[in-house]
C-alpha cells in the first residue's frame, strides 16, 4: 500500500445496496467496480460479511482475493453497536464489548486500518482501546446525523477523545451533516407512503428550524402522523443535518476518515450537500486520509455513474483549493 499524503477517494459498498440485495452485483462484483472508483474500499460489517460479527476463513479468503486481484486498499470497516437488539432491554456494557470486539478482530484480519464506531459505543470505548492498539486499528466515531458537530452528543465524544488523547480514537464525519436542504425525492417518498401534504410541509418547516428529532416526531404524531410512517419521517432527521463546513476545521486533527455521503447529482454537483465547502476545508487544512463515497439516494438509478460523477466533483474541488 502506498501511503501518499492528501485526500484519497474510495467507495463504501453501502452505495451499492440496491444492486447487492437484488443479486445484481455480488460482493466480488462490487469490489471489482471499486478498482475504477478510487480504489479505497469500505464495507458494512453486517451487510457484506457472511458470518458477521465473526470472521470465517471462507469470507477472509473471498475478500482478500478480490483486494489483491484489483489492487484495492481496505480503508474503514463499519462496526455496529446495535444497542436495541434485545426485545426486553438495551445491551449492557459487557454485552456491547462482547459484540464489538469480534467486529474489530474481523476488520483487522481483513486488512482494514480503521473501524467506524457508532456513538453508542461511547460507554465502552476505553474497554475497546486496548484491542484497537493490539490490532493496530484506529477507531472513529461516525458523526452521522443527528450528531452535528455542535450537538451535545458530538461535544461529549470530542471531550472523551481529547481526554483519552490516543491516535486510536478519533472521528469520522459523514457529509450528511453538511446538508442545506432535503432532497425532493425524500418528500416524494413521504407522500407515496400516504403522509398528507400538510404533514409533509410541516416536517420540512420543522427540519429547516432544526427541531430535534424527538420533538418533531411528537408534534407530527399529534397532528395525525400514523405510527407506520414514523420510520419514513425519521429518515429525514436520520439523514440530513445542518452543520457548518467551517466547523470541520476545528475537529480536523481528530478526523481519521470521511464518509462522502450523497443523495443525488445534478449537472455535476450534489444539490443538497455542501461538498465544495467541505472539500475546501479538507484540502486547505492538509487532511491526509480517505473519503468513501456513500450513495444513499433512490434505488433504480445508475449508481456506478453517480459515484463516478460525485468523485469527479470532489476531485474538481480538490484541485481548485489545493494549495500550490
Amino acid at each position, binding site marked *: 500500500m*502506498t501511503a501518499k499524503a492528501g485526500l484519497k*477517494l474510495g467507495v463504501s459498498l453501502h452505495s451499492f445496496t440496491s444492486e447487492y*440485495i437484488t443479486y445484481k452485483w455480488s460482493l466480488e462484483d462490487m469490489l471489482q467496480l471499486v478498482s475504477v472508483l*478510487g480504489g479505497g474500499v469500505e464495507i*458494512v460489517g453486517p451487510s457484506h460479511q457472511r458470518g458477521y460479527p465473526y470472521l470465517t476463513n471462507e469470507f477472509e479468503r473471498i475478500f482478500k482475493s478480490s483486494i489483491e486481484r484489483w489492487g484495492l486498499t481496505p480503508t474503514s470497516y463499519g462496526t*455496529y453497536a446495535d444497542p436495541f437488539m434485545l426485545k426486553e432491554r438495551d445491551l449492557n456494557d459487557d454485552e456491547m464489548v462482547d459484540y464489538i470486539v469480534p467486529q474489530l478482530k474481523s476488520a483487522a484480519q481483513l486488512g482494514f486500518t480503521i473501524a467506524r464506531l457508532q456513538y453508542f459505543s461511547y460507554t465502552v470505548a476505553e474497554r475497546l482501546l486496548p484491542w484497537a492498539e493490539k490490532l493496530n486499528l484506529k477507531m472513529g466515531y461516525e458523526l452521522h446525523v443527528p450528531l452535528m458537530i455542535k450537538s451535545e452528543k458530538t461535544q461529549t465524544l470530542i471531550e472523551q477523545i481529547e481526554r483519552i488523547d490516543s491516535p486510536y480514537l478519533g472521528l469520522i464525519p459523514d457529509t450528511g451533516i453538511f446538508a442545506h436542504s432535503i432532497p425532493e425525492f425524500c418528500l416524494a417518498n413521504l407522500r407515496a407512503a400516504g403522509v398528507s401534504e400538510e404533514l409533509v410541509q410541516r416536517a420540512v418547516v420543522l427540519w429547516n428550524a432544526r427541531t430535534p428529532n424527538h420533538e418533531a416526531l411528537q408534534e407530527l404524531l399529534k397532528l395525525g402522523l400514523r405510527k407506520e410512517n414514523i420510520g419514513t419521517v425519521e429518515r429525514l432527521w*436520520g439523514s440530513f443535518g445542518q452543520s457548518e463546513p467551517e466547523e470541520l476545521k476545528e475537529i480536523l486533527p481528530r478526523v481519521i476518515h470521511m464518509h462522502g455521503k450523497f443523495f443525488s447529482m445534478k449537472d455535476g454537483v450534489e444539490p443538497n450537500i455542501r461538498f465544495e465547502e467541505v472539500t475546501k476545508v479538507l484540502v486547505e487544512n492538509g487532511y491526509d486520509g480517505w473519503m468513501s463515497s456513500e450513495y444513499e439516494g433512490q434505488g433504480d438509478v445508475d449508481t456506478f455513474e453517480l459515484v463516478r460523477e460525485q468523485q469527479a466533483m470532489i476531485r474538481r474541488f480538490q484541485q481548485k483549493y489545493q494549495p500550490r
Partner: protein
Amino acid sequence: MPNQQSIPSSGQELPAGVRAILAHTGKSRTFLCEETIRNAVRHGVAGFELNVNLTSYRALPLSCIEGLILKVDGRDVDVSGAQLVLNGTAYPFADLASLSAVWWFILDPATLFVPSPSPLARGDHRVDATLITVEPYVTAGRFSFYHPASRTLAVESASD
C-alpha cells in the same frame, strides 16, 4: 499533488470486466420472494410455505423480527404457529424475540411455514404480508418498521 488512483473520466473506456458487471440484471425484491407457494407438512403439521426475504440492507439477529401480518386471498391468516426456516433450521415465530445470537444474513432467503387446516387450492393466490422489524441502532430507540409486500403467487400442485 496528492496520490489519486485513476478514475476514468466520463466517456473514457471502462475495462471489459467492469462493463460486464454493469450489464448484470437483478431481480425485484420485497419481503415476498417471487416464487411458488407450496402445501407442506412439517413435523406432522399441515400448512403451506413460501420463501421470504429479510427487509433490511444488513443482517439482523432474529430478536429484531417483531412480527408478521399475513393475508391470503384477502383473509387474515393466523400466524401464531408460524415458523421461519433459515438455512435448514426452523424457528417458531413465537421464539424469535429471544434469538439474538441467530443471524439472518441479507442475501439468504428464508422459508415461512404457516400451519393451515386445509391445503391451498392449485392456482393463483393473492398474498399480502407485512414483516415488522427493528433496526437496532436508530437514534430514536427501539421502534418498529413495517414492510408491506403483496404478490400473486401460485400453488403449482395440490396437497400431497
